[in-house]
């Protein structure tokens, strides 16, 4: 080998050191959007382990630390796990083990979101969300909940055992390098699980269902439209007829009538706009966007089996993997079957040997905003109850991938965290920030044998407020809307309140007075996010704008259940998959009246004919469905847009303020005026030009035909609804290739089989369950048990869900009689149990 000159050897060495270091560094940590390809593509421990992990479980024995006794877990064809444990401790440990085995990445993502640690793994783009979560304080609440639990508390014991089960998997994965592939692609490993993490995930769900911006949006409407029009068009009580399930009589002791504020100042509007602009950057689950759900129950007088029946389909943002993990369990104190949330040790919806239950969101107002009085003369202080008070400060450090740690100081008033100081210092008092022993409550629900115990169990459930429907083996049915309903001593709670102490929360509606019903004379009970009480209910619980549903699904459910006898599981299946639009059934005849005698073009006449012969079902192949929906959208816009434009309603700041079918109040107004008040002044133009419901309907219909012709061709029979409307199931990690892309589908936001979230619906029935105490139970959800995209259990239930099919909710012994029933026997490991 010929020797190079000395300087060249040094240069060569320097080059080699630099390039080698650079390559190793880039391979280790990645560059740009690419992950560290060295560890990620390592054939032994990189993403390739996804293939091995995707293989279905086989019958085997596993050593697990922390168990007291052996536990058996049998899997059915869909991956539903049947746990048989001889101690309650082992049941929860096995649940943690299962969740972590099949959903560890999802669990880590959910705890990171609630704890404000998303930026650490996805970079600075998640920083606004992390900062807000730290302000809102899910972790502070979780810590307080944990500290409030007594040593022998059953929830505490369940959480500890569950945590051990999760950490058994994390430890084993760390040893074998078998963490789910997305950890490898993001270049990190999960930290050990703690009970606080589980409580934070409980907080995530509370936030998704309960943290809302209604009061902020109302403030912008008052600022632009004026107080009178806002309260006229966004009233507290709905103008249309609804079907509250609790029809009274109500407690005599209510609260004093609400005192109106009537104005919103410029500083307040600036703060509100700043907040709403900020909130738009957050993940969709951070703010309650009006998800819908259904549940109903009938007693034995209405069923073919002669026993009570119950159905439930909670509507949430649909994701792959699903929010749900299905499991059944047998342990000394627990015998249940249902769905759990990965990260939380108990099921949330399901049945035991005696009772069945399901949930819908109450939609009451649980978020209050306070205008805090501050002054440059009193830095670090706020004025409350006649004196300047020190702001309490909490300090956070937010780790950001590839960047320096970001320090954050959260200022707390007596109402809650300060979330903006732009224009007006504003804090938020959110019921989800108050400790709520939901896990204890749920464990008591799961063990309940009758309505008394069920109701007692829910007395400690505070947030998110939920309509818990109930049916039991003895034939009883019940419904109770458990949760906190804040009562303020003064002011308009649907607008930002004064922070000086005058408008503080002075309590919540007593549990005995919260909406509830038991064995009603009608023999049916149902909730579908409609206002659950009648107009005589003596407490304020929220406005029509505050996400109470229009009640069209409730109308449909009430009509179906009231008009059917000898109900069967098949009837309930039909109702859960029903795509009949109640509002269309009311309005289309009025439209036909408006069009009669009008000169119509051939296309308009054909479109009118399609509506005349339409059954009101939003089927994917229905052209009339497209005409109806487009008509209603135009009708809303033609009625209200002139007012919005004249008042400069800031729809760019908050697109939720724009006019569209998502505005529950406006739908109810227009429905009511069209049916009963065709000359309402709102139909007129702001300049005084007179119009009526009929003339605006005619205008909207002409626009509808033109718009559909432009979009879908000249022939109205080609305007199938599925060409306009689709459902999609995105991936939780927002990776398009891991989700299910939009596919033309029926339904709309008001059908029982709800399709929510726009013309590409990404929210809807996240779980459909039917329990007949006479013949059995069945269920389905749009997903699969495993988060591994390569697993046969990743999305295997989607097809059945899409087609309205169900799987039986069987027992372990029934599964064991089937051909496929791999069983894990978990045996106590070296460290044994506690």
């Amino acid at each position: 080998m010929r020797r190079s000159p000395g300087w060249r050897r040094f240069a060569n060495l320097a080059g080699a050191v630099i390039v080698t270091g650079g390559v190793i560094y880039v391979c280790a940590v990645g560059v740009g959007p690419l992950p560290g390809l060295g560890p990620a593509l390592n054939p032994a421990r990189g993403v390739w382990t996804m293939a091995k992990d995707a293989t279905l479980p086989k019958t085997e024995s596993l050593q697990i630390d922390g168990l007291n006794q052996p536990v058996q877990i049998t899997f059915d064809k869909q991956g539903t796990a049947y746990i048989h444990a001889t101690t309650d401790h082992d049941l929860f440990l096995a649940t943690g083990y299962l969740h972590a085995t099949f959903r560890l990445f999802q669990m880590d993502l959910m705890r990171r979101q609630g704890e404000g640690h998303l930026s650490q793994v996805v970079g600075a783009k998640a920083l606004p969300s992390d900062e807000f979560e730290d302000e809102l304080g899910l972790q502070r609440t979780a810590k307080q909940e944990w500290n409030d639990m007594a040593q022998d508390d059953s929830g505490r014991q369940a959480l500890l055992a569950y945590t051990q089960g999760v950490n058994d998997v994390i430890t084993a994965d760390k040893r074998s390098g078998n963490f789910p592939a997305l950890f490898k692609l993001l270049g990190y490993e999960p930290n050990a699980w703690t009970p606080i993490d589980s409580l934070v995930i409980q907080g995530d769900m509370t936030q998704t269902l309960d943290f809302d911006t209604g009061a902020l949006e109302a403030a912008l409407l008052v600022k632009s439209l004026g107080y009178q029009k806002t309260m006229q068009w966004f009233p507290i009580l709905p103008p249309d007829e609804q079907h509250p399930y609790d029809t009274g009589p109500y407690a005599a002791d209510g609260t004093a009538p609400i005192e109106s504020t009537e104005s919103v100042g410029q500083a307040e509007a600036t703060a509100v706009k700043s907040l709403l602009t900020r909130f738009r950057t957050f993940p969709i689950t951070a703010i309650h966007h009006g998800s819908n759900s259904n549940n109903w129950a009938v007693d034995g007088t209405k069923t073919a089996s002669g026993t009570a029946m119950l159905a439930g389909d909670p509507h949430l943002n649909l994701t792959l993997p699903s929010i749900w993990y299905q499991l059944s369990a047998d342990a000394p104190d627990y015998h249940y079957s249902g769905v759990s949330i990965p990260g939380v040790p108990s099921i949330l919806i399901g049945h035991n040997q005696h009772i069945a239950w399901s949930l819908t969101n109450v939609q009451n107002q649980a978020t209050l905003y306070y205008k805090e009085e501050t002054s440059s003369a009193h830095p670090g202080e706020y004025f409350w109850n006649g004196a300047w008070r020190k702001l309490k400060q909490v300090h956070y450090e937010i780790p950001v991938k590839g960047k320096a740690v970001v320090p954050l100081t959260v200022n707390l008033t007596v109402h809650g965290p300060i979330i903006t100081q732009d224009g007006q210092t504003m804090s938020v008092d959110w019921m989800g920030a108050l400790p709520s022993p939901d896990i204890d409550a749920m464990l008591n629900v799961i063990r309940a044998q009758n309505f008394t115990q069920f109701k007692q169990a829910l007395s400690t459930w505070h947030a998110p407020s939920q309509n818990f429907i109930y049916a039991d083996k003895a034939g009883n049915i019940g419904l109770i809307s458990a949760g906190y309903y804040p009562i303020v001593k003064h002011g308009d709670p649907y607008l930002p309140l004064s922070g000086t102490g005058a408008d503080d929360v002075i309590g919540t509606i007593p549990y005995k007075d919260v909406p509830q019903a038991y064995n009603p004379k009608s023999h049916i009970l149902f909730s579908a996010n409609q206002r659950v009480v009648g107009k005589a209910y003596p407490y304020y619980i929220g406005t029509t704008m505050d996400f109470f549903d229009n009640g069209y699904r409730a109308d449909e459910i009430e009509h179906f259940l009231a008009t059917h006898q000898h109900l069967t599981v098949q009837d309930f299946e039909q109702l859960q998959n029903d795509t009949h639009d109640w509002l269309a059934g009311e309005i289309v005849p009025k439209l036909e009246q408006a069009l009669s005698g009008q000169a119509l073009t051939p296309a308009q006449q054909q479109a009118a004919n399609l509506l005349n012969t339409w059954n009101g079902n939003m089927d994917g192949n229905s052209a009339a469905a497209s005409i109806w929906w487009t008509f209603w959208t135009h009708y809303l816009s033609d009625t209200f847009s002139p007012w919005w434009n004249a008042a400069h309603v800031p729809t760019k700041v908050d697109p939720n303020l724009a006019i569209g079918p998502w505005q529950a109040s406006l739908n109810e107004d227009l429905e009511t005026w069209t049916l009963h008040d065709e000359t309402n002044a709102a139909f007129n133009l702001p300049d005084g030009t007179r119009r009526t419901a009929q003339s605006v309907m005619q205008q909207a219909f002409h626009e509808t035909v033109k718009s559909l012709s432009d979009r879908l061709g000249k022939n109205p029979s080609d305007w199938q609804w599925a060409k306009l409307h689709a459902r999609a199931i995105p991936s939780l990690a927002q990776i398009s290739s891991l989700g299910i892309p939009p596919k033309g589908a029926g339904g709309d936001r008001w059908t029982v089989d709800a399709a929510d979230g726009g013309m590409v619906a990404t929210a809807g029935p996240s779980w459909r369950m039917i329990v007949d105490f006479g013949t059995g139970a069945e269920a389905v959800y749009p997903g699969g048990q495993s988060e591994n995209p390569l697993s046969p259990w990743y999305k295997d239930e989607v097809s059945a869900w899409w087609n309205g099919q169900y799987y039986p909710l069987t027992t372990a012994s029934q599964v064991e009689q089937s051909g496929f029933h791999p069983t894990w026997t978990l045996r106590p490991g070296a460290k044994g149990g506690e």
Partner: protein
Amino acid sequence: MRSVLVWTAPVILAVALIWVLTDLGLWYSGTIVGFMMAFYVRRTWRSLWMTWLAVIGTWGLELLWQAQLVPIGEAASIVAGIMGFGHSSIIVITLTLVVAWLLGTVGTWLGLALTNFLPSRTFFST
């Protein structure tokens, strides 16, 4: 015979070493082996070719071996989707082998650059 052994034995040893080290999570074992190979062989192209054979061979063999048991091609397709390469499994598999090649190459280069400072040796120069 001797020359065949002189060529193949180090490569087989390198394959075994890389296999064991990658199994332990040391994804940069190709760099280590390339570095060692440079010291052992001390001739630029020969060390590079032997390193490439060892690193690409090991990572490729590991994938082939796993493919007998589990759907490696589908895993590659999913990873391609996540990385934004559509569903082309071949891109991810190629990328994996390119990473192996790169790691081996820089290790060998570093080794050769250091051997330039050592006394000459004629072990492989025949």
